[in-house]
């Protein structure tokens, strides 16, 4: 049995030189001409950098109980607290945690889960797609049937179900620790089908080309050829699907966490923060809900718009 | 030789028609100062290579140019009345009622989800003041007239239940069902089997003779022209190159382009000469040569052809738009 799995980094860097060339040409030109794309990219970049450097930017560490002062609870944004006189940019929550800091750390978790889930889905989808397209026969039938059945169900439902099952399997004492990883696997597993379909399609086309037969004649292995020639071909659709999937994965993560079946309160993502904030909406502490919600919205919208633009720019056929 | 078109008011008169398409790289002119008439009961064949502007002229007449294409100048008269300036809704009422259209591909011209009877009755009801049951009767009669066997049953069939040739008959029935005085047939036989082409042409010819309908028959097929048309208008790069009675033009073309076209068409009447081809290709609309558009490919080119666009055929006066028409006494 030939090993068809690929190390993930090869997928990403496999054709960087060609991508770099594209970046210098039409692609970059189109990008500069599309204000929506530029703005979305800028917003995404700011948010991602904010999440990456959260420990440097955030004025407080929301996970460090020592830095919390319950007296600071429910501080309004930009106004000094009545008891302590401390002032917080975006206010504090009930436990006196700085909302700005929790958002930065929350975004870190949201982005980490989203990106990891998409990477997982991508690796899985590409592998299964290559396998289905190249091996054919029963392997293909089984993989594509599973894909069809899974497509019948909304991915958020699949993710919930996987999360639920995984939660049932993990021992109670590890559940909170494992939650993030379970979340990544659940969202990733619910999202591989798109990748698999595109890659399989490309493989079927490529498989019958003469150079593959020729390369086999001179003794090169089929799978190696597939990987070398198909991955570059599917790079742009995969990139488009990955970007759109990222927006969907971020939303999925937020939704699951909001529903209480995602990131735990000890490691709150944006969704968890919104879940917590919702309770304070009725009592007038709007900022605890508003700022995490606005951040999630900005993140999801800008990544989505970026994906939308990318799809039009890279692959007009997908429109 | 028929002279009817000169004696009576023509059904359709096109005068100096120019169609423009503004693009980023400048204005294209697919139809450039074209004039011709079509009389009642007459079939005018409009012939030319693809991109010569023949279809574009037809679209201009029915007022269905795809934006940004538009009529830049000239006049279109139907029964002596000017129609190119009509408001949208009046133009809509004219289509189908006064001008019937037959498009190239019968497979895509009919709505696949509607019964052909419904498509016929909706057309009649849009234009004629008749009851739905009367429309249905007429629909069956129209199908019989175009030679659909078992019309009374077939009227409730869907388009996919007919063959290509039968569908084109349905399309012709649709074009004629509101009794228009002009039919514009845009490549009506191109998409059909060769064996069916002659039947469709014969049908079109018979129906128009019977009703005295004028026909503008747009095609690139000289065979179709020879078989069906009374007169022929030859278009090249948006301009009218030559116009005249079909026998004269076919037998003794005087524009060098028509001559070349004849030379490259296998016609039984022309004997066993070898086919020759015109060197080069028709210029693209964004790269027209100065002077006469045909001069780079013309064997008779002289200095004036390169410098000046050449004469134009206006009001049917003159037969060929050429400085140096072929003198038939020399050649033949």
């Amino acid at each position, binding site marked *: 049995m030939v090993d068809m799995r690929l190390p993930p980094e090869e997928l990403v860097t496999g054709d960087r030189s060609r991508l770099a060339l594209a970046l210098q040409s039409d692609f970059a030109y189109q990008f500069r001409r599309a204000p929506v794309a530029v703005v979305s990219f800028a917003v995404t970049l700011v948010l991602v950098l904010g999440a990456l450097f959260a420990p440097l930017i955030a004025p407080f560490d929301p996970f460090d109980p020592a830095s919390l002062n319950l007296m600071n609870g429910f501080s309004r944004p930009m106004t000094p607290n009545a008891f302590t006189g401390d002032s917080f940019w975006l206010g504090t929550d009930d436990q006196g945690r700085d909302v700005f800091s929790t958002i930065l750390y929350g975004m870190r978790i949201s982005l980490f889960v989203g990106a990891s889930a998409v990477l997982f889905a991508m690796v899985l989808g590409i592998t299964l797609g290559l396998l289905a397209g190249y091996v054919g026969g029963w392997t293909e039938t089984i993989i594509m049937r599973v894909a069809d*059945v899974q497509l*019948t*169900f*909304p991915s*958020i*439902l699949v993710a*919930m*179900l996987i999360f*639920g*099952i995984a*939660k*049932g*399997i993990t021992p109670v004492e590890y559940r909170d620790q494992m939650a993030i990883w379970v979340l990544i696997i659940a969202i990733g597993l619910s999202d591989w089908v798109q990748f698999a379909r595109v890659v399989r399609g490309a493989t079927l086309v490529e498989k019958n080309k003469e150079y593959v037969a020729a390369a086999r004649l001179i003794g090169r292995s089929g799978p190696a050829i597939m990987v070398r020639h198909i991955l570059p071909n599917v790079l742009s659709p995969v990139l488009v699907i990955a970007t759109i999937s990222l927006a969907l994965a971020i*939303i999925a993560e*937020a*939704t699951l966490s*909001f*529903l*209480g*079946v995602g990131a735990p309160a000890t490691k709150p993502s944006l969704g968890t923060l*919104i879940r917590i904030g919702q309770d304070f*909406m*009725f009592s007038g502490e*709007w900022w605890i*809900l508003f700022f995490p*919600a606005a951040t*999630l*919205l900005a993140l*999801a*919208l800008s990544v*989505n*718009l970026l994906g*939308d633009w990318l799809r039009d720019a890279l692959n007009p056929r997908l429109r | 030789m028929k002279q009817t078109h000169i004696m009576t008011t023509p059904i359709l008169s096109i005068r100096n028609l120019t169609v423009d398409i503004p693009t980023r790289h400048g204005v294209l002119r697919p139809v450039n100062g074209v004039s011709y008439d079509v009389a009642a009961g007459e079939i005018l064949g409009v012939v030319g290579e693809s991109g010569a502007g023949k279809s574009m002229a037809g679209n201009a007449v*029915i007022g*269905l140019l795809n934006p940004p294409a538009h009529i830049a100048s000239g006049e279109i008269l139907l029964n002596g009345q000017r129609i190119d300036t009509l408001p949208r809704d009046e133009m*809509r*009422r*004219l*289509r*189908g*009622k006064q001008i019937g*259209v037959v*498009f190239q*591909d019968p497979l*895509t*011209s*009919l*709505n*696949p*989800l*509607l019964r052909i009877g419904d498509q016929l009755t*909706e*057309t009649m009801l*849009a234009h004629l003041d008749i009851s739905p049951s009367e429309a249905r009767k007429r629909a069956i009669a129209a199908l019989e007239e175009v030679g659909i066997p078992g019309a009374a049953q077939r009227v409730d069939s*869907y388009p*996919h*239940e007919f063959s290509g040739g039968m569908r084109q008959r349905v*399309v012709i029935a*649709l*074009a004629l069902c509101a009794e228009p005085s002009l039919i514009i047939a845009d490549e009506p036989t191109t998409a059909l089997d060769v064996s069916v082409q002659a039947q469709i042409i014969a049908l079109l010819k018979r129906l128009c003779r019977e009703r005295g309908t004028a026909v503008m028959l747009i095609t690139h097929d000289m065979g179709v022209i020879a078989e069906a048309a009374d007169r022929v208008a030859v278009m090249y790069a948006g301009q009218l190159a030559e116009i005249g009675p079909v026998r004269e033009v076919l037998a003794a073309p005087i524009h060098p382009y028509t001559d070349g076209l004849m030379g490259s068409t296998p016609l039984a009447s022309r004997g066993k000469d070898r086919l020759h081809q015109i060197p080069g290709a028709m210029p693209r609309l964004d790269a027209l040569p100065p002077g006469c558009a045909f001069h780079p490919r013309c064997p008779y080119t002289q200095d004036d052809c390169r410098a000046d666009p050449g004469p134009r055929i206006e009001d049917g006066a003159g037969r060929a738009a050429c400085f140096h028409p072929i003198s038939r006494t020399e050649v033949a």
Partner: protein
Amino acid sequence: MLAYTLQRIFQSAIVLLVVGLVAFSMFRFVGDPVDNMLGQERTIEDVERLRGQLGLDQPFVVQYFRFLEGAVQGNFGVSYRQGRPVAEILLERAPATLELAAVSGFLAIGFGIALGVFTAIRRSGFAANAIMTVSLIGVSLPTFLIGILLIYLFSVELGWLPSFGRGETVKIGNWSTGFLTESGLKALILPAITLGLYQMTLIMRLVRSEMLEVLRQDYIRFARARGLRERAVNFRHALKNTLVPVITVTGLQLGSIIAFAIITETVFQWPGVGLLFINAIQFVDIPVMAAYLMLISVMFVGINLIVDMLYFAIDPRLRADRTGAH
């Protein structure tokens, strides 16, 4: 057509069997049912007796078929958390979800098609462009945020509509409906909009792009050339052809509405099966999860089957292809 229908039913049955296997495996392997049903104080005899009762000592395949047998009869076991038969709980909760889903579905389809047609016909108009831009934001908005936004606006700020629950319901037989009381109807508004909005934007965008494609077709041009009114061209000719591909996606969207009801029900504390499912996940109540999975699969597979059959009703070409002798 009969052969095709049978083939589709056969495929659906296989999908259901597979889903059943997943549900059964959950039952059997995720957490030990015996552990869950017996407390800490138990004897080995107790365990053995219960294993025998539950049939856990039988071979896997036998157990699977017994599970399926039970499922077909509506027997999904007993909820670990509530200690009541799952079927009973589901039946009690179903009307809330179905009423919510039905109203949302109507909203989504009605407005989705209407706006889709509008934006296609007036595709360069200001209103159409504005709708398209807003819809892109709508697609990016997570459902639960829409719900929260609506609650904030209409419940907290304006105080017009309730923010949670179903209001008063009336019992008709086993069915509890919120359609017959004022508070029931009021309570339905915000959840229905929340649930329908996303599907509406999807349907709208789909109708628009399909309609634009259809408007480019020859038969539309020919219909214009025959002098038909713009209205007849757009609705009689274009819309009907647009609906063929729209039906599939719309059908699947209806399935999603049931699934997305989970989110809406959580936001509005709507006492339906979705909220039940979420609670089941939180408390690892496997029988409820398995039953929900089976139930929703039957629904999805059924919807897919109906969508396939609808194709035949709309497109005469398919009817001919399938009935005609090959």
